[in-house]
C-alpha cells in the first residue's frame, strides 16, 4: 500500500503515475546492468546502500537477474555487513563497497585515493557506471522509503552495521 495511490503494491505501481519518468528510470537501470561492471559487485553495492538507507523493500524484491546469472553468492549477501574483514570478498568488491558506503554516509568524505583504487579495479568506465548507479539506487531507495507503505518495507531483517566507511 501507499498513501499516494490506493491499491499500489510496488514501486512500479507508483512510477506508473508518471509513465515517461518510469520508462527513463528503467532504462537507466537497464544500462547499468548491461555495462562493464561485474553485476555481482553491482548487486552487492545496491543491497548495501539499501541497508544503510533502511529500504527493506529492496531486500524483499528479487535479486538482479544479471547478478544471479553471473553467479552471485548468497553467502556473501548474508555476510555483507562484515565485507571489510570477510575473506570471501575480493579486493575489487571491497573497493566498490567501500565507495558505496562512503557515497551514502558522507559523500564529501570520498578521497582521491579511494576513487583511484576503484579505478584500478574497474577502470574509468566502471567508475562512471558505478557512481551513476549509486545515484540511481539512492534515488530508488529514498523513493521507496518516502512513498511505499510500511507493509511493503517490513518483513526483512537487515543488518545496518557499517563496517567499511568511516
Amino acid at each position, binding site marked *: 500500500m501507499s498513501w499516494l495511490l490506493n491499491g499500489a503494491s510496488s514501486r512500479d505501481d507508483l512510477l506508473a503515475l*508518471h509513465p*515517461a*519518468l518510469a520508462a*527513463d*528510470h528503467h*532504462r*537507466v537501470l*537497464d*544500462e*547499468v546492468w*548491461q*555495462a*562493464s561492471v561485474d553485476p555481482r559487485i553491482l548487486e552487492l553495492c545496491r543491497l548495501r546502500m539499501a541497508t544503510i538507507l533502511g529500504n527493506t523493500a529492496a531486500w524483499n524484491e528479487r535479486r538482479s537477474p544479471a547478478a544471479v546469472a553471473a553467479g552471485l553468492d548468497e553467502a556473501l549477501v548474508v555476510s555483507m555487513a562484515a565485507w571489510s574483514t570477510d575473506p570471501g570478498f575480493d579486493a575489487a568488491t571491497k573497493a566498490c563497497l567501500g565507495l558505496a558506503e562512503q557515497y551514502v554516509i558522507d*559523500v*564529501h568524505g*570520498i578521497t*582521491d585515493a579511494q*576513487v*583511484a583504487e576503484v*579505478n584500478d579495479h574497474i*577502470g*574509468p*568506465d*566502471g*567508475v*562512471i*557506471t558505478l557512481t*551513476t*548507479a549509486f*545515484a*540511481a539506487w539512492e534515488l530508488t531507495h529514498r523513493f521507496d522509503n518516502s512513498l511505499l507503505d510500511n507493509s511493503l518495507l517490513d518483513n526483512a531483517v537487515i543488518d545496518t552495521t557499517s563496517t567499511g566507511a568511516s
Partner: protein
Amino acid sequence: MSTTARLPSAIDGKPATLQSVMAHSPRVRAAFDKMYATLWSRGSVDLDVKELVRLRNARVTDCGL
C-alpha cells in the same frame, strides 16, 4: 567537495570536465541525462518549484556545483 576531476577525460584533447569524464560510460550517462531531462520537462510540478527544490537540495547536500 573535490572540484578537480578524479578521472581523466574520455575525449582526446579535451580537459577533464564533468561532461568529458562522464563520457567514459556514454550509454549509462545518456540514459541518466534523459531521465534528468524528463524530470524537468514533463509532469505537473511547476518549473519554479522544481528549481527551488533543486537549490534547496544542493544546499542541504553542500553541492558546490
